[in-house]
């Protein structure tokens, strides 16, 4: 089988989320990486070096520079004649584009796969990860989004794929990009790929308190910062901090949940973490049912004390 992988990038470099998709695609067949962007030659070169990529298609056009689904999906659909499967990361960008490609091809998308079980058979989580379904497709072509935490990342070196130019219909004239507000995390690792995550919940009261309590501990551990939906809704932190069924799915080495009760929607986003540490003053909080290490304590005393001692 021949697979086409959507490379996620910012026109400068390849986003890590792509690497797990390359691994998943490699379990299905040959991997061609599609770099659709504007002035994206450096991305195409980087993609060509990813281990397991055998060819790179570069569609360099202003219409693809902002990754608008209305423009990128027809490009992908047009290229699919030569491929049996299209795979994208289950990121907000992949989830925006892939279903549109599926509809163009008149096939069902298989969302958020966890494993490849056969040519057309995959597992995927349903009901917030409370059930794992094995699904088999009868469609002539596959459109798949891949859960990044479920596959090893392909190595960023080792490949030497040739780069070919590709083109599509360009600007569909339906939508335009206006602006992007992306917080600069400084040296802090990205939530989706961090080794250690410190997450705060509703108990953190307000944004100043959240910052005073959570940030110093995260700094000490070189950790990314996450949050529950309650903390995001209350405005303590921006929306992209949300971990959970309807936020980001993470699986770091260590996840530290502070003042988070452990609702199923939150657990859905973090219960595959290697080690879970919970600090909560309620000894019956559901988070303790999944925590490897629990501390029943008032976070306002415990967290500063912990930060100082590390």
């Amino acid at each position, binding site marked *: 089988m021949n697979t086409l992988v959507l490379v996620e990038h910012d026109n400068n470099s390849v986003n890590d989320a792509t690497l797990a998709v390359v691994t998943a695609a490699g379990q299905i067949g040959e991997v061609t990486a599609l770099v659709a962007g504007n002035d994206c030659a450096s991305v195409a070169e980087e993609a060509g070096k990813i281990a397991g990529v055998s060819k790179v298609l570069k569609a360099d056009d202003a219409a693809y520079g902002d990754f608008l689904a209305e423009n990128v999906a027809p490009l992908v659909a047009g290229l699919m004649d030569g491929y049996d499967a299209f795979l994208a990361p289950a990121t907000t960008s992949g989830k925006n584009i892939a279903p549109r490609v599926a509809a163009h091809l008149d096939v069902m998308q298989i969302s958020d796969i966890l494993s490849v079980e056969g040519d057309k058979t995959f597992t995927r989580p349903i009901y917030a990860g409370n059930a794992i379904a094995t699904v*088999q497709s009868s*469609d002539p072509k596959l459109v798949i989004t891949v859960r990044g935490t479920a596959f090893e990342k392909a190595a960023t070196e080792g490949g030497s794929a040739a780069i070919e130019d590709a083109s599509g219909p360009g600007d569909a004239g339906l939508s335009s990009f206006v602006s992007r507000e992306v917080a600069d995390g400084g040296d802090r690792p990205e939530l989706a790929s961090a080794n250690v995550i410190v997450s705060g919940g509703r108990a953190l009261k307000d944004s100043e308190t959240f910052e005073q309590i959570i940030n110093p501990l995260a700094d000490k551990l070189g950790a990314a910062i996450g949050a529950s939906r309650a903390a995001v809704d209350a405005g303590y932190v921006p929306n992209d901090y949300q971990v959970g069924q309807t936020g980001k799915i993470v699986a770091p080495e260590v996840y530290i949940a502070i003042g988070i009760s452990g609702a199923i929607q939150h657990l859905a986003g973090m219960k595959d973490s290697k080690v879970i540490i919970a600090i909560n003053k309620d000894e019956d909080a559901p988070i303790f*049912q999944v925590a490897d290490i629990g*501390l029943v304590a008032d976070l306002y005393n415990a967290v500063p004390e912990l930060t100082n001692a590390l």
Partner: protein
Amino acid sequence: MKILVPVKRVIDYNVKPRVKADGSGVDLANVKMSMNPFDEIAVEEAIRIKEAGKAEEIVAVSIGPAKAQETLRTALAMGADRAILVETDEEVEPLAVAKILKAIADEEQPGLVLLGKQSISDDSNQTGQMLAALMGRPQGTFANTIEIDGDSVSVKREIDGGLETVKLTIPAIVTTDLRLNEPRYASLPNIMKAKKKPLDTKTPGDFGVDIAPRLTTTHVAEPPVRQAGEKVEDVAALVEKIKALGIA
């Protein structure tokens, strides 16, 4: 302008789903069902747009069993004007849902279709995007803010890195994210009034849509269960544990 709001009946978000012992699926017998929370947000947004004088009519649609009428009545009680039930006892996949919605949109000619970004049952996150492709119209997924301005709509989207704004020409498809609004509760008088609002019943066949599934679920299993670990006495003990993990 007319707004079309597709609403799905799903397991209530407070219920912990259980996998059937024979691995054939999730046990939905006697389980509390509700409107998909993202769809409540979509209905609320449609009502706010209408209240702001930018839409005249809100049509709620559901594809599902006869009981999905309850979900539609909830939408009507919140403030939708009329409803369409496309009745079927089959599990309809997002692609087929999108095809039925396209057929309804062809008849109704809405300026906006407002959907949930994902249903909390199947978590597919694809119906809106598929509908947009089938209609050949733009999509604003994961909406945090929607502003209608003449014949275009600006959608601020919740993306992995933060927020992004796109401008779409109307008719457009928008899918809701959690921060778009806080849905209202239907008042008792409105629940009574909703009983008299029009609700049409159709079948997928009326729209000539083939709903035969493309995917077969061969097995549904419980995920690996995580065991609770130990509780430590105090911060000093936690510090030791964290140091032993080699991260500090």
